[in-house]
């Protein structure tokens, strides 16, 4: 059998290495390099579609599994496989990468070759994160991904880029090294229990752990992921990184990187430590709701469009985390759907803000106004994406948020009150921004001559707008393949979750969850 999964991350990586060989010191081959990079990323996208084509949507098992011993002394394997959830995230990654490359077609002028190399290397590492079933392999990809992102922000970013790049790197690393300790601890516990080290996720799922141990390990994993998501109050790196990153960096950062945090929660933190997860879920859910409202409120008052979109991410990712905490099929499916939807819509927002910024070299809302009459096509694209981001029915954001709220309602209705408030607020800040930028009179003389969408901008914007509509109208296309996997994770976390009666204090939320599970079976 063709090792499709290995190919899916090797294609961009090898492509990146080949690009390195093209001599381009003086920038004379920039065009060649750009086209080649685009070609490679499109090939990777095509490959991920092939994987989707052959993917069996009815199965909850990991598919296309490849396993080769890597460091046998420690039970470390090169072990990859995908289920419905990771499949869709891989497709999201490969879908957004060509768009990211297109978005910087003109914005990045110096060191084009290196830029493309880093984007492709980043893509390879991100795909690797979603494929890994071995915790060691996962950690390698997880950390390796930081390096290209660091360079992308630090070299091609805006004024405060160095500060933002270092902050991004250190924040993420500080979280992930604690996860490293927990991973080592898990492998050690496995060797205690069975006599041999193992980093095999599926084996570690079945590991029995004392509640106390679970609690520490769960926290170590969750903090690492919470920083990545970012969950309130770990979000302070995000506005800096997003605002300072070049457009392509922002698109990938918001579109894919943040999802690695929520993916980590779904794949690792919750199923590995179900008891601790049940215990902490109410707290994490509360932080998620705080993040939803806080992110929205802060977004509302931002003078800078990019910063506004960045804070809106904090808010939207709060929904995802809430859906995960609910840990029922609706909530989880909604969470995964929202991850995809957010990737598309926020990717789109950053893309178009980037286009405005390329034209005017400013992202301040006050510098614009009345753009509708100057650039109607760009306005239309932005409107679609804005409405998608708000969660208007018929567009992608609606499905995810609706499912999340449904799931959260079955878990604990109190959270939904806060989340619902967040939905309203998101309409407020997005539409207000839209109004100030696009409606009214053209207040700045230099805005009158701005060009509308150019062909390569069309090429970047159309797939995103189309995807926003497709995901809104045909949600089953995406919900179906992920359903068995989501159901399996819910069962995995739910089954082993004890009703907390042993200390004489039956917890309300846990009881509720039991009821939900009983309904499902």
């Amino acid at each position, binding site marked *: 059998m063709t090792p499709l999964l290995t190919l899916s991350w090797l294609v961009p990586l090898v492509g990146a290495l080949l690009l390195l060989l093209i001599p381009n*010191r003086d920038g004379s081959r920039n065009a060649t390099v750009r086209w080649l990079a685009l070609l490679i990323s499109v090939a990777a996208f095509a490959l991920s579609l092939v994987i989707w084509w052959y993917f069996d949507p009815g199965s909850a098992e990991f598919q296309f599994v490849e396993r080769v011993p*890597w*460091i*046998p*002394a*420690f039970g470390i394997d090169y072990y990859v496989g995908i289920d419905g959830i990771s499949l869709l995230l891989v497709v999201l990654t490969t879908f957004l990468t060509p768009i990211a490359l297109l978005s910087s077609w003109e914005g990045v002028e110096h060191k084009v070759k290196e830029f493309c190399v880093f984007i492709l290397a980043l893509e390879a590492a991100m795909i690797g994160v979603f494929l890994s079933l071995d915790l*060691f392999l996962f*950690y*390698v990809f997880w*950390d*390796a991904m*930081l*390096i290209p992102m*660091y*360079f992308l922000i*630090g*070299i091609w970013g805006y004024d405060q*880029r*160095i500060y933002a*790049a*270092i902050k991004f*790197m*250190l924040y993420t*690393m*500080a979280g992930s*090294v*604690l996860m*490293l*300790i927990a991973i*080592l*601890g898990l*492998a*050690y516990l496995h*060797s205690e229990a069975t006599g041999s080290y193992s980093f095999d996720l599926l084996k570690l799922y079945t590991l029995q752990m004392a509640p106390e141990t679970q609690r520490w390990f769960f926290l170590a994993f969750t903090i690492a992921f919470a920083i990545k998501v970012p969950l309130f109050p770990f979000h302070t790196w995000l506005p800096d990184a997003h605002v300072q990153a070049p457009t392509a960096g922002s698109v990938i950062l918001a579109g894919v990187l943040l999802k690695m945090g929520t993916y980590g929660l779904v794949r690792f933190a919750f199923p590995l430590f179900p008891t601790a997860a049940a215990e902490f879920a109410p707290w994490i859910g509360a932080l998620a709701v705080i993040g939803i409202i806080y992110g929205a409120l802060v977004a509302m008052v931002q003078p800078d469009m990019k910063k506004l979109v960045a804070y809106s991410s904090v808010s939207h990712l709060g929904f995802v985390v809430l859906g995960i905490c609910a840990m029922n099929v609706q909530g989880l499916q909604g969470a995964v759907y929202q991850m995809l939807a957010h990737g598309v819509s926020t990717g789109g927002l950053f893309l178009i803000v980037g286009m405005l910024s390329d034209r005017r070299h400013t992202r301040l809302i006050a510098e614009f106004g009345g753009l509708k009459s100057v650039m109607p096509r760009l306005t239309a694209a932005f409107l679609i994406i804005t409405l998608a981001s708000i969660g208007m029915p018929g567009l992608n954001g609606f499905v995810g948020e609706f499912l999340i709220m449904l799931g959260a309602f079955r878990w604990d209705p109190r959270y939904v009150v806060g989340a619902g408030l967040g939905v309203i607020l998101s309409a407020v800040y997005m539409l207000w921004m839209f109004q100030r930028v696009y409606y009214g009179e053209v207040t700045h003389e230099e805005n009158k001559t701005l060009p509308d969408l150019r062909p390569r901008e069309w090429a970047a914007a159309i797939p995103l707008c189309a995807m926003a509509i497709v995901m809104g109208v045909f949600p089953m296309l995406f919900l179906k393949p992920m359903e068995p996997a989501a159901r399996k994770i819910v069962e995995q976390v739910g089954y082993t979750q004890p009703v907390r009666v042993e200390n004489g204090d039956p917890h309300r939320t846990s009881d509720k969850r039991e009821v939900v599970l009983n309904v499902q079976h």
Partner: protein
Amino acid sequence: MFNTDLDALIPMLCVTLTALATMGTEAFRGRSERLPIGWWGLIGLGGAALSSALLWNRNVVGYGVIVADNFGLFVTVVLVAIGALTIVFSSQVVHRDGIPAGEYYALVLFAIVGMIMMATATDLLVIFVALEILSLAVYVLTGVRRDSPKGSEAAFKYFLLGAFSSAFFLYGIAFTYGVAGSTRLEAIGSFLSAQALSNNPMILLALGLLLVGFAFKISAVPFHMWTPDAYEGAPAIVTGFMSTGVKVAAFAAFTRVFLSTFEPFSTQWAPLVAWLAAATMILGTVVGVAQSNLKRMLAYSSIAHGGYLLVGLVAANSVGKAAILFYLLAYSVTNLAAFGVIALLGARDRDNDELRDYAGLWHTRPALAALMTVCLLSLGGLPPTAGFIGKWYIFSAAVSAGYYWLAIIGVLTSVVSVFFYLRVVVMMYMADREAGLPAPAAIPGVGMAALMVAIIAIVYLGVLPTRVLDFAAESIATIF
């Protein structure tokens, strides 16, 4: 071969002979004649590597005090690699900096002899002799640029403090001899495990004194005071050599003495070493953050790396022992390559080792900047590099020995260390060169080739570490 006693000494003898040849040639060469003296050392080092390979798994003992077991041979090979890289880098800078070539190469080779001896010795006195051989050579190397006041100061400081610590070490040997009646490690070990001596003040004193002696050589906090000055004052390539070679040799002896001979006393020394490790990791990284001189920064970073190695020693399980060996190799190659870059970028009148000298290096020397970045990422412990696997290995040893707190300190200090390694990367890639700074020199092909070899090794160890991990595990099995 004809004499098994001598067999064990062959790696050392190979290096000694070339060292003597180097010295002899220097004495008899014509005044204006320039000979490729440096390269001769490579022949001896090649011989040492080859003979180590032949001695593998044979466990030959030489005259009762030198043992060519797999542990010693593994370390020998690491030392050979260090020596070879040092000589190749040196060949690019010795002439440029006006360092007397004959003395320089002879001293490097003699230092390596001392290091190999230290790693293979099984008698405390022989360890001491080895320690002195390598120390004296390194003291001189530190001050080899006689016209540099900084260098002389560094050499003098290093010498005084080094002599002081040697005295501690010697006292430790004396007390051990007083209790156990022997300086042979094996005899001491069997004596200690046979008697219930755990509260004997004499032996605890001896243990403490030996610990101080070793701690000085590996520059563990609080015995690290000499390190930053000595590292900054010495020529960059010598700093690279002593921050790796001396550490490797000292750690090999440290491991041998404490994990085999003094194993019965591990409950006494392990907590102490654990605190040393914690203090070393924390101080090395925290003070490293504040440095603006690259050599000084790497000096503090090498202190911190000593701390990680101590974690492996504390863990003291089979994983930890093999981890020490792997980490020594990974660290040596990486650190030496980083210092190689610094050395190659220097000039006769200017060391070019301030952080700002690296500003914009990417624009003028992209390949060199990329190589340096790999080194720094490896030192910071990021995948897919040797440093990552090394740290992974060390911390998994700590976790499986139950030292979660040490592992947590270890990973958190690595994050802090990444901060200062990244400062260099920021300089190279994201900052513009100040006006008035000389453009970085062109790098000769040989230096570039050596760097490439080191980088390939770093990535190889980071991606496919299995073979070397197995070797490390195998070699550690012979002595414990």
